[in-house]
């Protein structure tokens, strides 16, 4: 599970209302995604490209249980999330939707840096700066859910086994 892309760097406590703003919650995910993070970075949704990587500070995803906070990032093609720490529900939502989310307290990167995430190994390489960083290893049972593409494929397999 390797992802390589450009870094988009944000600060601490990026909340779910910044990621999935309430006034667009009735709208289809494409519309909602176009407003992702606009309150702090109006150009983010138009600039981000498939495979790009979000790098944030502590408590990334704090706030609502709304899964659209992850879905909006996935819709825009974001390939992985790296943060000093994640809000609990958001972290679950990311794994459940197959989005790699790694806790990397030491990571240093600037916007636009060429960053590679090796989720299974717990390593992040900043190819621009030439530095390598260790991330916290995900528990095996959770890594399995992400590697399968999220909780839905995991449930499909579980049900198939039970029915077999």
């Amino acid at each position, binding site marked *: 599970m390797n992802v390589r892309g450009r870094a988009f760097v944000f600060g601490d406590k990026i909340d779910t209302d910044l990621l999935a703003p309430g006034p667009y919650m009735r709208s289809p995910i494409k519309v909602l995604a176009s407003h992702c993070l606009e309150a702090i970075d109006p150009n983010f949704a138009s600039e981000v490209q498939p495979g790009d990587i979000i790098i944030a500070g502590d408590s990334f995803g704090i706030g609502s249980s709304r899964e659209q906070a992850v879905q909006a990032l996935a819709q825009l093609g974001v390939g992985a999330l790296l943060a000093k720490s994640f809000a609990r529900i958001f972290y679950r939502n990311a794994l*459940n939707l197959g989005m790699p989310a790694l806790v990397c307290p030491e990571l240093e990167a600037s916007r636009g840096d060429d960053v590679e995430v090796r989720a299974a190994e717990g390593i992040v390489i900043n190819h621009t700066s030439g530095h390598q960083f260790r991330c916290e290893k995900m528990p095996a049972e959770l890594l399995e859910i992400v590697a399968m593409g999220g909780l839905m494929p995991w449930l499909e397999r579980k049900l198939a086994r039970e029915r077999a």
Partner: protein
Amino acid sequence: MASTLAEKIIAHASGRERVRPGEIVTAAIDLLMMHDSGGPRRVASRLDTLGAKVWDPSRVVVVSDHFVPAVDIEGAEILALTRRWARANGVRHYDAVGICHVVLQEHGHIQPGMFCVGGDSHSPSGGAFGAFMMGVGSTDITGALVTGDIWLTVPQTVRVNWSGELSAGVSAKDIMLFLCAKLGMGNENQAFEYDGSAVRKMSMSERMTLCNMSAELGAATGIVTADAATLRALELAGRPFAGDIAQWQSDPDATCLAVHHFDANTLEPQIAAPHSPANSRAASSYERIAIDQAYIGACTGAKLDDLHMAAEVLKGRKVARNTRLLIAPASTEMTAQAAADGTLQILTEAGAILLPTGCGACPGMGAGIVAAGEVCLATTARNFKGRMGSPDSLVYLGSPYSVAAGAVKGEICDPRELLMETV
């Protein structure tokens, strides 16, 4: 071996003798709650894809509160889908009668010792009844509906003791805003256990506010050990507790991550400045911030007790000329009670606009959205940028006393100034 209340509930639900913080366990769900925003709208098609059915419809409750009443076609379609799905699956559905956390409490669904999961971040509210209740997203809800269980990391317990007694004009909301500033919002994977004489004296509604805003601390849940007040509330709700509450309390020598002691007597009314509940400080320290809108609503700020607090301030007074006061009671039952005891009359005579029950403006989905440049003082749980409308609006948080006082003065103030004056 000594265990905290949270550990005891999780151990019981996961069929273990005991559990320890940091362990990942799978726990059986006693009650699962979802609402119109993250519920059937999101899970119906996923269950169809899996060809799976709800594991136990008697343990599932759906509450429509986010898009009620519908203000556009998208919202109306979401509500219609929610109704159809609940009926087809034989699941209890409360349709536009109040905010999910409050409706669960009114009907006695949450009982001491239960392990509960809610499809909403403020689900820790259920902890006010001595249960462990955590919030999750809609894919997690899908998995829980299929299997009847869910994985979780056993949280560390943090004890917060409030000794003494809250002064007049100070409430549970002030406690939580103070704690958000004091302890920050990064308390992930922690269960907050509230206790002390000030907590023991609180109504169930006020205890719900404590547990509810544990979400703002970033915690897994908040919890208050069940006592006589809990049992009385469950009896009133028509579902008396059949178990023994002595079983559901922390052992005195159980290991906690931290124990905090605060004195309720010295706590002043708190106001959180934009854009985080952690930006809280004493209301008396704010200087002349004019308010365009005062909003009394949400699961953490428009229950019957909250309406009473607002009425205490608003009685015989009028909302300031350049300020509008919107009030969205937390349930139709509470609206009826407030009508019967004269509270609604006090509020409307002061000039408040009465809104339908539901989540309303708090998540930016209902009436009361604010424009760019506008300042709103609200009793809601969080004031993140762009949550209640324009990203360029400014939302301050305060107790119902503080919001009502702000509406009268037209600016942020310490509500005790008004409470001490005779009208």
